[in-house]
């Protein structure tokens, strides 16, 4: 069972980074909010760049195949948490 407090903190961090990215207040976002429809002016190109921005923010590299599969904020939180927990692959 995952740590709910940790997930909440991660969610808040992600909301903060999305706000920085779109330069707007996105405090209305909730775990069930859909990334594609809950952020004003979001487009498919912005979504790709947003995920690149998240990679930079968290020092991670997302798998290219999952980039199109994030539906809700919760999906993003789960993916980033799992990636943070994954053992580092040898170079």
């Amino acid at each position, binding site marked *: 069972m995952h740590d709910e407090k940790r997930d909440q903190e991660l969610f808040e961090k992600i909301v903060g980074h999305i706000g920085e990215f779109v330069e707007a207040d996105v405090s209305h976002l909730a775990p069930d909010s859909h990334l594609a429809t809950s952020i004003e002016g979001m487009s498919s*190109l*912005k979504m*790709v*760049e947003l995920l*690149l921005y998240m990679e930079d923010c968290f020092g991670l590299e997302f798998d290219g195949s999952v980039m199109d599969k994030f539906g809700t904020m919760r999906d993003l939180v789960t993916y980033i948490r799992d990636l943070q927990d994954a053992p580092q692959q040898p170079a």
Partner: protein
Amino acid sequence: MGVVCPLGPTVDDLWQGLVGGRSGIVPLTRFDPGRFRSRCAGQIDDAVVTFPPGPFQFEIKRMSAFVRYALFAADRALEDSFPPAAEDDRNAEEEPPSCPPGGAVFLGVAMGGLPSIEAGVLKQEQQGVRRTSPFLIPSLIPNMAASAIALRHGIEEEQMTIAGACASGTQALGQAMRAIRSGARTWALAGGVEAVTTPITYSGFEAMRALSGRDDPASTPRPFDRERDGMVVGEAAAVFVLEDRAHAEARGAVVHGELTGFATNGGCDGITAISPRHVARCMTGALADAAVGPDAIDCVFAHASGMIQGDAAELEALRSVTADARRKPIVTSLKGHTGHTFAASGPMNLVAALMALRHQTVPPTLKLEKPDPAFADMDIAREARTTEVRRCLVNASGFGGINAGLVVSRA
């Protein structure tokens, strides 16, 4: 009309800089130019290129510089031509300028987002393919300047981008003029833009031996000077609202001048050389379109960029066009002030010509200190000259043997 250039972000900045003999050429700062022979540029001050909130604000920030400069100049042109009515509660600092329906956009762009292409290639090689921005392609395609203007201002008729090298902007103005003349449009935004101050531009032009090697920005480029040694890269956007005269007068618009003639042609003796014969043919065509003879031209805003061959070829062409004229026009070039702004150079010339018509003053050819003896028979302005200016000829020529000319008259 609207402009942003090395002399500033307003038409008055440009005009005051021209008549005051101010050079916008500086040691270039967009990258370290140490490995290049040419280390100067006519740069736009990005701090002044700002936009009120409005559609596509997020995307505009990610566009290559030429898109942002074109948008800025178009905003100024729209404000100039369609000022908000007194009762309009639009806050100019919070919304982009508005315009009536039925308009179109015609913009000349030669090299598009070359800085974005170069940066994109470097990022791909250094950080990997997947780090490429999804905005890379939209930011660099040459049409994005016209498209961004049209999208931001809700202009839903044709948006045309013309790539005719350094004649692009002049060709765009001519095409807009033809569309209005034909009755297809009552008004259009038209002009040109260029912003390619990036290393690959310098290496490419240096390989052609096209850039001035002078280090002192106060002494280069030198159009028509016997010590001219090439051009200096410049950045600019100049955009105009062109409109059917009756339509403009009916709505009480300020009319800066009247475009009465346009011609464009092709032909050169080499892929990049300027051909006197074809330039002369182009000038004659523009005059014929305006239904005037060479006597009627008071001033020629020359393409002259400080190139040895090009400056001489243009004056040879003018010499042949005016051979039988009773009076010879004054000739001037802006390039010593601004550098060569490529696709924007003709539209920049048009801004200067309209201001010359308004102020009855021909601006000087800056940095012309030692006139080439081969041009001794030509009346080249070396100082700002107050004189009667009723009609001007604007020239532009580009690689590939493209020439374009406009005749503009006092309103």
